[in-house]
């Protein structure tokens, strides 16, 4: 399974493609895409360069946990910096 992500053109914010085909700032709302739909969704995103920068697919397993190599990077993209002045305080 895959999820589709990109940065927003105007401010670079991280976006995920949601279930309702709308782009969301929230990783939790990312839609799980199967092999058949993923490539189409990516192609559509690439055709929308007025909104998005650098869309790409991320491999995830069934519980939407990102696979190996990209796991940490995608976790940081989803949660924001883990340290420093702009770390999200919880």
């Amino acid at each position, binding site marked *: 399974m895959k999820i589709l992500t990109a940065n927003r053109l*105007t401010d670079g914010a991280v976006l995920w493609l949601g279930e309702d085909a709308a782009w969301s700032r929230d990783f939790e709302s990312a839609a799980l895409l199967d092999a058949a739909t993923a490539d189409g969704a990516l192609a559509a995103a690439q055709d929308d360069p007025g909104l998005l920068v650098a869309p790409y697919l991320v491999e995830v397993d069934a519980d939407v946990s990102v696979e190996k190599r990209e796991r940490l*990077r995608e976790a940081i993209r989803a949660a924001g910096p883990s340290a*420093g002045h702009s770390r999200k305080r919880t």
Partner: protein
Amino acid sequence: MYRYDEFDARLVRERIAQFRDQIERRLDNRLTEDQFKPLRLMNGVYLQLHAYMLRVAIPYGELNAKQLRALAHIARTYDKGYGHFTTRSNIQFNWPALVDVPAILEALAEVEMHAIQTSGNCIRNVTTDPYAGVAADEVEDPRPWAELIRQWSTFHPEFSFLPRKFKIAVIGAAKDRAAMRTHDVGLQAVRDLNGSLGFRLFAGGGQGRTPYIGQEVSPFVPAASLFAYLTALLRVYNRHGRRDNIHKARIKILVASLGIEKFREEVEAEFDALPKASLDLPQGEAERIGAYFAPPPFATLSKNSDAFDTALFRDPDFAHWTHSNLKPHKQPGYSAVVVSLKPVGGVPGDATASQLDLVADLAERFSFGQARAAYDQNLILPHVRLDEAPGLFRALAEAGLATANSGLAGDIISCPGLDYCSLANARSIPVAQALSERLSDPDFQKRVGPVRINISGCINACGHHHVAHIGVLGVDKQGEEFYQITLGGSADETASIGTIVGKGLAGDAVAPAIERALNRYLDLRSDGEAFIDTLRRVGNEPFKEAIYAVA
């Protein structure tokens, strides 16, 4: 410091207008990202993990109070309240929106700053010794030469599309406080037997995945011929540098593959063939630019200050701070002061908007309105009266800017790492923070003395780990961060590349391992021997043993 003339001002304004138009065309989709990306990079705008990043040039690290306030304003208005000083004496803003970039560039232009040539395959911001015009050992103030190189290289049509980026450092003394030999070209001002000024010229230094120390191309390029010689050298690079493989495109690879003799022959042949008269510096130009860097109106003072001595006696914290953060000044009764951007547990190189405003105020009160950004990610107030150091210390301490660690174990250099950077493989900041906490005891740092610890989150080595006495390199193994330790690097006039000691450590094992290595040094050192000297005398083995010892 240098002030823009009408040409500088016009050039910066025209570039903003051009880039504003390019941004508008990107936003309404008349430009694709593929078309726009090289244009935004030429203006210092990167896309990082969470947002755009704007890298602003601080030419040879020199800042005035007005500029610091403009940076504070940008941090407050367009970012999340802070900026990050880099190892190239630039400042990066991590959160600007693309739509705000033209306004940010306008605010910078108001104070004679810009983001031109902070990215792309061109000649980048020229760096220098942060103690230029301060250090007693310099044969020539390197800043006018750095400024001349800036003017010569800005929008240079022949050198705007080099095989890869090109970094130049200029120093004015035999002692290298600017990591000069890690640059594509390094220049050291020297004088010949007649007292004429020239430059010892090094080329082919660089870090990244294949680090090299720069090698001497010429022992003496006469000052008047500097630009002809640089032109010849860049032409050789432009012609023969590889464009087919980004990892082999830097001049260091060309110098290494040709060998320094052959490279020198090529440069000399090109130099001989150049119409030099048209490239020589116009008569009086060096003096004209040099005048901008005239010493400020120093008071005539005794080299001792009663107020200073009294404060040393009364305030142990002040005394402790002076040991590490006050640097010698050639003017009697003055000192250069390191404003530490390395608080215990902090992010190396980060400064908040209010800290930037405060440093601006303090620069005006104590240092003729001048400040500097140094390659070790600290700020410097270059001309402070010893009399006034106690007052300055109190003001800095209140704002968390007086950590007494300049040049010591707590003065860690770190890149932003995977918390921000889209190139990184591992995080750097949390490792730097853990290390800074672990080594925070001021007495321990004082006992250990000078040691350089640098952290990079990937092999591109923005954190200069290759030339650290103790380097830390983050790597990714199947989605987990590991950190390799290197030993024996150095960025000064005895420049060397560190060697990896062994297998990578988990993030939380790095700080204890480095602490053990420092303790091993305390056991092994002879009298007066600094960490790097002991390491060079005894070799890596005892330190490796300490690093991998199970606690």
